[in-house]
């Protein structure tokens, strides 16, 4: 009687806690990052990855299709080698290009893929040939300032 209702309340309490955990995992956390459908890895070389970090999203036309797995450096070319884990359910042409972009002015950086026209597709271990490095704001600004400075000194 009394013990029964106490057990019921405790049971409900524990369930509420587990439901909260489930909500955090499914609705708040990114369950897709766990790659339930499996992924395949492709690499892309960049001259400069800017502030790209592992786990950053990989998107095609703004839709998330995978994430950055690793960023290493090629000891011969001194280029950054970015390994991308792409979801198995998507296939992309082999002549697709990859670029590093920034979400908003100060947002985080991500990799954007632009599909090409080839009939052959990227598969595990493929390499994306055409890449566009991160646009680094400071570099653009300093270039702008230098060219301005050169211009004005020539003028005087």
């Amino acid at each position, binding site marked *: 009687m009394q013990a029964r209702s*106490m*057990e019921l*309340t*405790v049971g409900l*309490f*524990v369930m*509420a*806690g*587990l*439901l*909260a*955990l489930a*909500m*955090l*995992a499914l*609705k*708040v*956390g*990114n*369950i*897709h*990052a*766990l790659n339930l459908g499996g992924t395949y890895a492709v690499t892309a070389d960049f001259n400069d990855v800017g502030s790209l970090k592992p*786990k950053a*999203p990989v998107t095609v036309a703004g839709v*998330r299709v995978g994430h950055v797995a690793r960023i290493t450096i090629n000891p011969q070319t001194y280029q950054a080698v970015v390994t991308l884990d792409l979801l198995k359910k998507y296939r992309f042409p082999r002549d697709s290009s990859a670029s590093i972009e920034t979400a*908003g*002015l*100060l*947002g985080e950086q991500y990799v954007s893929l632009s599909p090409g026209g080839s009939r052959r597709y990227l598969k595990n271990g493929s390499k994306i040939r055409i890449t566009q490095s991160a646009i680094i704001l400071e570099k653009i600004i300093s270039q702008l300032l230098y060219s301005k400075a050169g211009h004005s000194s020539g003028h005087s």
Partner: protein
Amino acid sequence: MSWGADTIRALGRRVISGIGRLGHAVLFLVRLMPGLGVALARGRLIIQQLYMTGVLTLVIVLVSGAFVGMILALQGYNTLVRYDAQSSLGLLVALSLVRELGPVLTALLFAGRAGSALTAEIGLMKATEQLDGMEMMAVDPLPRVVAPRFWAGWIAVPLLAMIFSAVGIIGAYIVAVGDLGLDGGVFWSQMQSGVSISNDIMGGLIKSVVFGFVVSWIAVFEGYDAKPTSEGVSRATTRTVVSSSLAILGLDFIMTAFMLRGL
């Protein structure tokens, strides 16, 4: 001159007695260990204590969680809107709650609501000779009285912390979408792209498990160690809240430092 020496001596005495207390607490935990297994075999007692500690703390956790989430949404919005980044509000709220505020505030609330009650209950059982009576009935109070309360506290804190974070996020959603006019889809999608299950949610869960252990340990130790008088029990209750709060914040700093460095 002698005043300075006295001050330093007083400080030394406090440090020594503090270390001594920690030693006593550790010894107590060691003595409690076999009882923990025995108590686990009698789940009924743990369920009873889960009701006393967990369920009765639930209301304050629900209310606090909702308010903290709503406040975070309002404050976060006001800051983010200056950088035109209000779309990240969901992410900001979720990370703050899941990583930090959920585990820490829940543990602090638990220490104040249930931890102090645990100490007072055990202390009063001691003061009214209930524990002595059990000993004379050949019943060891450690597995029978202390261990179920310890288990219940340890189990309740992580569950409550998850509930706190979830309710907080829902509260923030209501304010953000209902009052501030943010788009609900953006709220959730930004959150999902930025909150990592393995780092952020697991990290918060680990923190709350550690806090649950420490708060329950302090509460049952202070109760069992209390002087069996009404003054002794009230002092022990205060000590539980103070030491638990300090332990929670100190451990939180250490764990956060380790987690952010990716260890």
